[in-house]
């Protein structure tokens, strides 16, 4: 039997999500993305209601029960864009592998130079992995799933906002390369941006998001400890 506070937490979260979808459609901006806006809204309603974080956490398992099957479903877009991948195997694989390695090493090295604590360094190392996989990868690399999600969402916003400008500045004009870079670094939000640029960009970003997550999941547990 679930306590009323659990039901209340679930209802507030669902309501905040539904409202944030409406707001995002009406006023599209990085600040109205459902994860960001929905979280702020949930906190703003929960805090004055006297619901403590520990009480809210009890509702978490019920709410994220479908995250597993939702992640499995990411195979569908990957399967649908298989022809784009087969036609561009080498540039796609090389781009996502070196891009993933570069962003992971840069993040961990810089975090260490700036003296950030180890739980932040571990959590930030996998910030380019799509959120549903990053949540599960976090404990494997000794990071915190909650911190990881925050870094993943922030990286999505940063890449989607600054990525197109940066690529213009350094002369990345090839549509496959542009989509690939956005998907590799900024996962879902980068893919949404790439879809706006064009069909090939969108397909390349979707492939890169899925395969970069696979690649980083395999190498991060080996690489992250090397940076100490």
């Amino acid at each position, binding site marked *: 039997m679930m306590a009323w506070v659990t039901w209340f937490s679930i209802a507030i979260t669902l309501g905040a999500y539904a409202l944030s979808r409406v707001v995002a459609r009406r006023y599209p901006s990085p600040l109205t993305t459902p994860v960001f806006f929905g979280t702020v809204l*949930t906190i703003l309603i929960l805090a004055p209601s006297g619901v403590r974080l520990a009480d809210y956490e009890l509702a978490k398992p019920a709410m994220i029960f479908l995250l597993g099957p939702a992640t499995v479903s990411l195979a569908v877009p990957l399967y649908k864009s298989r022809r784009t991948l087969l036609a561009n195997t080498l540039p796609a694989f090389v*781009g996502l592998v070196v*891009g993933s390695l570069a962003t992971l090493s840069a993040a961990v090295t810089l975090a260490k130079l700036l003296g*950030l604590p180890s739980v932040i360094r571990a959590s930030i190392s996998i910030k380019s992995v799509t959120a549903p*996989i990053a949540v599960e990868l976090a404990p494997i690399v000794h990071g915190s799933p909650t911190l990881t999600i*925050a870094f993943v969402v922030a990286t999505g916003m940063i890449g989607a906002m600054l990525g197109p400008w940066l690529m213009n500045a350094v002369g990345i004009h090839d549509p496959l390369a542009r989509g690939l870079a956005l998907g590799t670094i900024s996962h879902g939000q980068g893919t949404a941006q790439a879809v706006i640029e064009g069909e090939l960009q969108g397909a390349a970003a979707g492939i890169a998001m899925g395969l970069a997550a696979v690649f980083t999941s395999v190498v991060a547990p080996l690489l992250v400890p090397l940076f100490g």
Partner: protein
Amino acid sequence: MMKTLSVIVMQIVALVAISQAGYAVAAALQLPVPGNLVGMLFLLGLLATGLVRLTWIETSASLLTRHLAFFFIPLTVGLLGFVELFLDNGPAILAVLIVSAGIGIGVAGLSSQRLASRKGRKTE
């Protein structure tokens, strides 16, 4: 309406089963990768080999991926427990995120562009 609902429920049950199989295999083989990732690769394999047809799972798969954002709200609300960590390290964290994203985008884009232009554009 009832029919659509039952189709959605059955498809979700199938996706839950694939996901659980992914976790079970990852645990049994002690793979150092997330179980849901293994589940995703299972489904990709089932689709590629034709053992599962896209139409069997597509309605629910697209429903779940469309609302993926919902699942992260309960997780990010937990950030309330990390307020001090962010107050202490905010600028450094932001610097790491921006610089590493920029380097990653530049490296991924330039390397893939170099290789793509070498063999000429092939698209489909």
